[in-house]
């Protein structure tokens, strides 16, 4: 029996799976549906679930993303807590009506003050040549349609803790799991009550001279860049947002007011990506605390290539982040 402090070294996707397992034991209204989930999931998050819960609660669907997401909305409205793994974040667009209209707006447009739990898992980002229709970072869409919550964990620990929060959240959650971190490992708490509340950013590295605001796949890269910068005498603070809706503005603004310099780093495309909103709000709310312009380091504005070497050229590297930081410190 795990006591409160036990941890286990496990992968990011497996940690999500552990959260699902624990919560499905606790709450029989949770069920999991998606393409291949009954055989363990394409990326391993659902491994072992069918053995314990059977095909009544771990359900394979056909290739039908609009149906899967719409079904989640309908089941949630009817009082169940569906978890739908959409396979790839790109497929959000196939199910646009069901996610951004039905899940986001149903209670609002019907004037209903009722809980509605639904977790849509979107594996996002590059994974070494999956190509332009299987590599997109679509999390910004969830920010643009009020009514949804938007999560992007950056570690195995957070993948578990945030999934636990999502499954107890009375609102629909778009849970973006990061493909490039899927098999990264970390010490994950085994306490079934370990939960990371939505809307709380984490300061991954304290620093004095600049604030690097990031999330998801870019957190480990920003951390590595910060270590290099430290050797050069540049002291960067790293904020891992963890959730984009709600976004922890208090932590972001407090850091910027301390460091007076800010840059946003994400794997999502640069133009109208989450960084555009974050930079805009920082300048609206803390302009006179800034020493210079807020920089963005983000994916190149092209469809992501199938060729893995070309793909790597499109995504911010540790070098790119460090170079931007050196520019920022000059302002």
């Amino acid at each position, binding site marked *: 029996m795990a006591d409160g402090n036990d941890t286990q070294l496990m992968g990011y996707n497996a940690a999500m799976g552990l959260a699902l397992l624990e919560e499905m034991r606790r709450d029989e209204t949770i*069920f999991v549906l998606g393409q291949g989930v009954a055989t363990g999931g394409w990326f391993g998050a659902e491994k072992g679930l069918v053995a314990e819960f059977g095909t*009544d*609660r771990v*359900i394979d*669907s*056909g290739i*039908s993303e*609009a*149906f*899967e*997401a*719409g*079904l*989640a*909305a*309908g*089941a*949630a*409205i*009817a*009082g*169940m807590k*569906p978890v739908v793994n959409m396979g790839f974040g790109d497929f959000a667009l196939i199910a646009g*009506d*069901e996610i951004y*209209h*039905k899940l986001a707006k*149903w*209670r*609002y*447009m*019907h*004037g*209903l*003050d*009722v*809980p*509605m739990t639904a977790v849509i898992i979107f594996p996002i980002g590059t994974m070494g040549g999956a190509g332009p229709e299987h590599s997109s970072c679509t999390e910004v869409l969830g920010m643009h349609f*009020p*009514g949804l*919550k938007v999560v992007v964990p950056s570690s195995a620990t957070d993948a578990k803790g945030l999934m636990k929060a999502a499954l107890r959240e*009375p*609102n629909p959650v778009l849970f973006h799991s990061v493909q490039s971190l899927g098999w990264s490992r970390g010490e994950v708490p085994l306490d079934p009550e370990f939960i990371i509340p939505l809307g709380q950013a984490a300061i991954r590295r304290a620093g004095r001279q600049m604030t690097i605001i990031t999330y998801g796949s870019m957190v480990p890269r920003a951390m590595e860049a910060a270590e290099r910068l430290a050797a050069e005498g540049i002291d960067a603070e790293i904020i891992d947002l963890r959730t984009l809706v709600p976004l922890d503005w208090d932590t972001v603004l407090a850091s910027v007011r301390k460091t007076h310099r800010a840059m946003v780093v994400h794997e999502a495309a640069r133009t109208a990506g989450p960084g555009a909103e974050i930079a805009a709000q920082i300048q609206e709310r803390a302009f006179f605390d800034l020493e210079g312009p807020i920089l963005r380091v983000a994916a190149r504005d092209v469809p992501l290539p199938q060729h893995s070497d070309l793909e790597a050229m499109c995504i911010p590297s540790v070098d790119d982040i460090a170079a931007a930081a050196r520019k920022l410190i000059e302002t």
Partner: protein
Amino acid sequence: MTNPPMDEALPEGVAEEMFGRMAVTRAIERLMAKHTREERFSGWWHPGEGQEAAGIGATAALQRDDYLWYQGRGCSWAIGKGMAPGPILGDLLGKTTGATGGKGGGVPHWADYSIGVMGEGATLGSVFPLAGGSALASKIRKDGRVSLADFGDGTSARGTFHETLVHAAAWKLPLIYFCENNGLLVGTRLEAVNPTVNIADYAAGYHIPGITVDGQDAAAVYAATRYAVDRARAGKGPTLIEAKVVRRLGHYAGDPQHYRRPDEFDDYRDPLDVLAARLSGNTAARLIEEADAEVSAAYAEALAAPSPDASILDRNLYHG
């Protein structure tokens, strides 16, 4: 496709109950026609006159806690499932007494989960996967409820029509696909874009029963729906019902209807007249009088009710 054998007998009292609700629906229809003509109304009302027997007949065969997902024309489904005229008119007039608290309009978003009125999605044909979701919920919970997805003929072209029915048939979900086939997609004729004018034909591909009924006759609609309900509750899976209905008015209030044919209404049968023939004595006249009085009172109340203020804009976006 031929219909499966169905029990055509109407249980005691059902005809009268259906007529009373249809009369309420018609009273609201007439009132909204007048209201949209006379007042500056921005609610996008989509009149349902002529099609009332579909919603009234089908909902009479459902139980109180069965899940209803309706399409946005008229109000027969919500009335049939047990909503009162007050919250319906409140929304149509944009008042705080509406079911949505004042957010609503002529594209209705009436919901009352306590009587299984689950709501309406205004992107046409959005009911399919939503009803699939509540039907799957019922199957997992074994709660014995049936889900009904009401949709127009035009939306049978939607991808989710197929996606949902494929799964519902494979999983034998307690789901009823109910098509109100009025032959018109706004102003486009169904035959211009569909390979068949009989939506029930599609059932064969899913290996489920397809039923075509006279949608002007509430009793026929009731019998077909009861057949589908019994099948769904017995765990035998979905049924596709197609009610041939007549959209008597425009797609929206004020539609000039240039697409109409001159002889289009020559054989028109009003669903109230068809059902009235099953009632005795002056029952129909009495029920119409009662409905008119009830709706007039609800209308006066809605007119007098306040419009919402800006505080409603942030309401119900998130729970908790």
